[in-house]
């Protein structure tokens, strides 16, 4: 096992629930988590000792980025990601925090005359519920706060689906989202607009770097798991080689980079 995947294995042990979202650093280094105590692991874990938002995926696993990334590197990664997303016909936007994300979503919803928004079950998306629902402009259904029947109904009619991403790969402009509940996958597959929220800690530079995460996410889980790599909206060129967007799923993909943690000295 390489040192990078060793780090993964260790992070794997962290228990996951909504209230661990803003887990302080002491928690991450707590002995109860059976963290390897040797120097190698500690150094490769440097990134998580910063005050940061841990992106809690609904498979109960905390993702803290594949390896420590300096702020300068990170700026490069962000600009490459942004270029890739835009090149593939998506929209890339930096937002300061969840409030910024919610005002972006409000803006595009109003512009498209959208009325219904569904939020995926991951922690970041769930956090958005109150913010977007506040104005009373939209019918917002969150996976975390509604019954299965209601959520399924909402999925069928919503114009906008909001989820977060476990990882975002700059090289290919790819969002990696894992789940073992199809409700969450459908948030990114049924509505005409998909908005993905990406925390800075989820940035990796290449697909290769994301390899161990992909491999571990599936291998180490028992039972069902589905990982989606999303790099653009749904498209076809099956008629006369002409590109048409939104043939089955989203016509638009919006990637919102959450800058909050960076401004806190990440």
């Amino acid at each position: 096992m390489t040192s990078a995947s060793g780090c993964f294995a260790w992070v794997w042990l962290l228990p996951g629930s909504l209230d661990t979202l803003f887990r302080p650093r002491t928690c991450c280094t707590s002995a109860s988590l059976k963290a390897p105590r040797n120097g190698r692991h500690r150094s490769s874990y440097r990134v998580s000792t910063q005050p940061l938002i841990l992106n809690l995926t609904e498979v109960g696993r905390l993702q803290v980025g594949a390896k420590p990334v300096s702020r300068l590197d990170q700026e490069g990664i962000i600009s490459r990601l942004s270029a890739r997303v835009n090149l593939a016909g998506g929209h890339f936007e930096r937002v300061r925090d969840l409030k910024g994300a919610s005002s972006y979503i409000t803006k595009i919803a109003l512009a498209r005359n959208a009325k219904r928004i569904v939020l995926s079950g991951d922690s970041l998306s769930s956090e958005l519920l109150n913010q977007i629902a506040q104005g009373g402009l939209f019918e917002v259904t969150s996976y975390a706060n509604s019954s299965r029947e209601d959520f399924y109904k909402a999925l069928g009619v919503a114009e906008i689906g909001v989820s977060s991403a476990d990882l975002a790969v700059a090289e290919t402009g790819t969002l990696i989202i894992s789940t073992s509940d199809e409700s969450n996958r459908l948030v990114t597959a049924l509505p005409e607009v998909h908005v993905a929220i990406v925390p800075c800690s989820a940035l990796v530079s290449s697909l290769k770097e994301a390899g161990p995460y992909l491999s571990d996410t599936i291998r180490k889980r028992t039972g069902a798991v589905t990982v989606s790599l999303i790099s653009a909206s749904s498209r076809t060129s099956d008629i006369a080689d002409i590109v048409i967007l939104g043939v089955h799923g989203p016509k638009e993909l919006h990637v919102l980079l959450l800058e909050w943690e960076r401004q806190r000295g990440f």
Partner: protein
Amino acid sequence: MDDAGTRAHKRLLDRIKVGLANTEQRAALYTGTEGGTEAAEKAYAAFPGKDVLLEDARRIKQLAIDHLDENFEDFIRNAESAGVHVHLASDAASAVQLVLSIIQRAGAKLIVKSKSMTGEELDLRQHLEKAGLDVVETDLGERIVQLAHQRPAHMIAPAIHMTVRQITDLFSKQLGKDIPPSPERITAIARESLRQDFLAADVGITGANFAIAESGAIILVTNEGNGRLVTSLPPITIAVFGYEKIISSMTDALTLLRALVLSGVGKNITSYVTITRGGSKLAKTGLPQEQHFVILDNGRSKMRRDPTFQEALYCLRCGACNDVCPTFRIFGGHVFGHIYTGPIGVPWTEYTSAPDDAGEFAPLCISCGLCQQVCPVSIDIPLLIARVKERYTERHGQLSINRTLSNYESFVKFASTIAPVSNYMLKRQLFRGFLQRTLGLDARRPFPRFTRHTFKKWFRSHEGSGSKHVAYFVDTYADMCEPEIGKAVVGLLELNDCRVSLPKQVGSGMPAFLYGDVKTTTRAARFNVQHLAQAVQNGCEIISSEPTATYCLKELYPRLLGSAEADTVAAHSHDLFDYLLGLHNEGKLKMPNRVMEAAAYHLPCHTRSVYDKSNALDVLWLAGVDVRPVRYNTCCGMAGTFGFKKGLEGYEVSMAVGEKLFDRIKTMNLKLVLTESSVCKMQIEHGTALKVVHPAVALWDLYKSKSRVK
């Protein structure tokens, strides 16, 4: 040829006739396939580390097939422990039965399907429909061919052969009302109706692009995202795939994914890649989804046991060979294909359908070698197709014209001996009519001029000197038809301080290979390699001026012979211009430097296959010649002796393939065309009426016109 062979040949000719006459389809096909090749070329040009990626990809597939037994067990164990129901099917019928029983046990009625070549191989949709089930293809292209009651015409673009108008008519008919001929509108209509099907479906059926042994997961690669809805909404999903799709790890999958997508659609990655294992919780009920994997053999283990055909299992189904293939561009997969389409379709049909099905359309391959060159895992498709042709002729016999052309060398020798009588005779329409009726050589195709003052005769009395030793592999044309090429090559080499020798040699044997007479080619290979290896031992580098000869020396002979000697000869063989560029890199190249009229340049396939670029173009530019490459990325259509065969068997197909090239050369408004290949020369001269010259001749003429030497 026996009766069955003759009937099959007749059927092929009928299909060729219909295909050639269908200009609307041809236009659609050409746009789609050329676009595909260009997109991949562009994407690879922008991708750093193409060679490393593709080497890795081939190695990964090779290892996966070598270790398939272990990977197979791991895959099944891991999938089953995650709750997947795994079924094994030894042949198509049992796979269909398995799928049917899963569906019937659940009492399912509506099936949604995503595109899968394995599904096509099984005729799965047709079988399910026969059993009274409602099956909806959800990939837009596949949906279109379903509505048209056709098969996919291309490995990854099923409706590539259809025009907007035809597709509009189809949907209008299905809806019972007229819709505007707009791709946007048609797509929107399809979205609406397919959405209802997704939501109501009882079972979703997919294939798999990769199956990962370490985790028991499968990977689906799509742009449309229909694969996501097929796998997320129905309570039961079934993935049907061949067992060659099993690879060892996720890391390997990511490498293969890059190669597949770059070669297939010319993108860094597709819109969606779905990795799935075990049934996730369903959105509607919260119950776990029931997931089945049906793993298919159907000839694959037989293919794996055959040392030659084993590598066909490396295929990633990217469709790049379909796009680049010169005859596929004219006919599409309905003629050039059985179920698996295009070049790789030939070996795959040989093993997954009846071998005679493969032998029937294999003659459409004209051995240009481009399929192997664009293949991300570098499968030796030309050799596999030649072997299929060989087996077919062993069963059904050979066409007499093919036998004649396989022995072209004795024909050329005779014509050369009796020249100029042969030239006179071959210009008489009466005699050409006679040849067409008796031998089957098309009367419209001009022959090259033969001469009895051959290059080899001239060279016997030629004295040259130089400190570097090179041996010239001259091949037939530069010897007996246009000795000026041979003389120019010797001249340019001697100008650069080379002492040229002419080892014992025969023609390359490529024409026999084209007709599946691999034995004859192997004989020529053995003879040439034996004598050239001697020359290499004496310290010579081997030079050739004919792209096909270079292709044989560097690519084909080593694969046919598999000997260390052949590898040595290959390593020391060069295209003339590759050798000259080598001298340039050492700072030793002497070149004429004088202004010449501007010329167009056509890159021969066999040069492209060996070097992936034109060395001649580089040398011409070094010499300051204003030479402009033609935008064209497939074969000119002549393919050695193929363009000489009469009518639909050769000439007419050959001219149809060359049409685009002729048009583009003509629109360049230049008077001179340069190309290294003798057959490209014949084809372009015939198609454009322009003067076509070998670059070596052009350069040597420049030099002889008393130029300065730089």
